[in-house]
């Protein structure tokens, strides 16, 4: 079962325009892979018509509770933000390929870099890594202090550095700046990179770490139709076509891709 109804448990604004939504439902029992997403129907009508992709932020597998953190952008997320407890929510998921974690070994050090509304999936990822004995360090970037989300939650998983563009919270600058300075996060200090955030951030990370040969994974966004790999709306091009595959589908081959796999 990959489509089903869940019930809204809570839906609360955490910072300006950003909400934390908790839902419960049978299909959530399958949501065990961080980095996957759910395709959410917002409302029950024909406007919005299409579903909206939202990342898994946290899952309580036993209780079948899924947490999503989303920002109100347009019509769909606006309607989602009006959800009230008890309301049914139509979900398709879990979808896509999440962050690879099965190969992780105890004692490794993972660097998790998030930007803005890309931070949420890193929470579940961090928790699953820690379960496997991996040490987690977070670097999370935002525009300004009032946009910072999930800092406390992440702090409970691993050391968390906050970066803001205006310096109003944590370090001033971009997440990549922090990696340059005295935070003991030089390349040799970590084994693997996982990241989710705005395209310019992902691009900066790929440009910087692809040449180094470090292991790393990036989670992308793209406008979607079906969400399951059938419509070819969400493609991105591969850097070097292997097996003649010149493109990847963000919804089903991704949203997570190894560093260097796709053009950004």
């Amino acid at each position, binding site marked *: 079962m990959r489509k089903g109804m869940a019930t809204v448990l809570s839906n609360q604004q955490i910072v300006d325009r950003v909400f934390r939504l908790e839902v419960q439902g049978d299909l959530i029992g399958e949501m065990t892979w961080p980095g996957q997403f759910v395709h959410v129907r917002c409302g029950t009508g024909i406007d919005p*018509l299409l579903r909206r992709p939202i990342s898994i932020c946290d899952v309580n597998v036993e209780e079948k509770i899924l947490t999503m953190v989303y920002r109100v952008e347009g019509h769909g997320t606006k309607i989602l933000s009006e959800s009230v407890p008890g309301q049914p929510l139509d979900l398709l998921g879990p979808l896509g390929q999440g962050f690879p974690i099965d190969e992780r070994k105890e004692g490794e050090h993972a660097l998790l870099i998030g930007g803005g509304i890309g931070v949420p999936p890193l929470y579940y990822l961090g928790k699953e890594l820690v379960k496997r004995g991996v040490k987690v360090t977070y670097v999370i970037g935002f525009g300004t202090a009032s946009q910072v989300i999930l800092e406390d939650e992440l702090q409970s998983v691993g050391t968390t550095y906050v970066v803001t563009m205006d310096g109003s919270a944590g370090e001033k600058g971009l997440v990549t700046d922090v990696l340059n300075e005295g935070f003991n996060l030089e390349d040799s200090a970590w084994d693997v990179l996982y990241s989710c955030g705005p395209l310019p951030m992902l691009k900066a990370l790929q440009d910087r770490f692809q040449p180094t040969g470090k292991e790393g994974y990036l989670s992308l966004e793209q406008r979607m139709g079906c969400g*399951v*790999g059938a419509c070819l*709306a969400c493609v991105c091009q591969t850097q070097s076509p292997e097996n003649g595959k010149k493109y990847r589908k963000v919804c089903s081959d991704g949203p997570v891709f190894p560093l260097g796999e796709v053009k950004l």
Partner: protein
Amino acid sequence: MIDNQRLAVSLAGLNLKNPVMPASGCFGFGREYAEFYDLNRLGAIVVKATTMEERLGNPVPRVAETPGGMLNAIGLQNPGVDEVMKTELPYLEQFKDLPVIVNVAGTEIEDYVAVSQRVSEAPNVSAIELNISCPNVKCGGITFGTDPGIAGELTAAVKKVSKVPVFVKLSPNVTDIVPIAQAVEAAGADGLSMINTLVGMRLNLKTRRPIIANGTGGLSGPAIKPVAIRMIYQVSQQVNIPIIGMGGIQNAEDVLEFIMAGASAVAVGTANFVDPFVCPNIIDELEQKMDEYGVSSIQELVGAGWK
């Protein structure tokens, strides 16, 4: 599966157990939806447009949303006919009770002819759907779908080589669709598919540019349903070949409306994205709705809106 004659339709020699099939481009080659349900439940399957060579399609974003609809400009991305013959069609052979209709596209008449000939030889292909109406690809300057003469010429050329029935998929972006339908009928088409998408556009207020990288895109979904119904109603009275109707179908009542307008079967496109189970759900719901509206069989209802 119990043979249910109420739902069965005969379509240019094809016998379908029910009139519901997914529309081209909205169902890939079936793989993804096969994870949701047994594709044998479908009346047939229409697969993604296939061209001679591999096509990479258009830049992204390729889709945008509109009130009650969506725009797409995928740009015929597909692995090319060789790969389709080698990988995709053989994959579908496992579904023993699933007629396969291959949507064929091209830039020149020769492309269409070559691709049609090849796919019509595949053991499990039941029909070809000629896509002369894709609004997202500049067809070498020629818009096959808007000129009765060229549409007829293309149809005749493909008919010569095809070993299976040929459906021609018409464009709704024309002043008068009837002469085009008549031209392809005269040229030997076994049936029509209608409608393809309407040409539309959305702008991004922040970037001040079209949302879709291609600029325009094809409008599909519930928004276009009344245009589809109107065109099928008009054309079905002027031709003697069956029509596969499509455009905004969401539920069993919509199916009955299309059949009543003159379609002999229907294809469901965009609605698959909203609910991957929409096709089997519609099929399950169909008989109950037929009872509700006193419809004895789908065949009986074809064109009842004007008969």
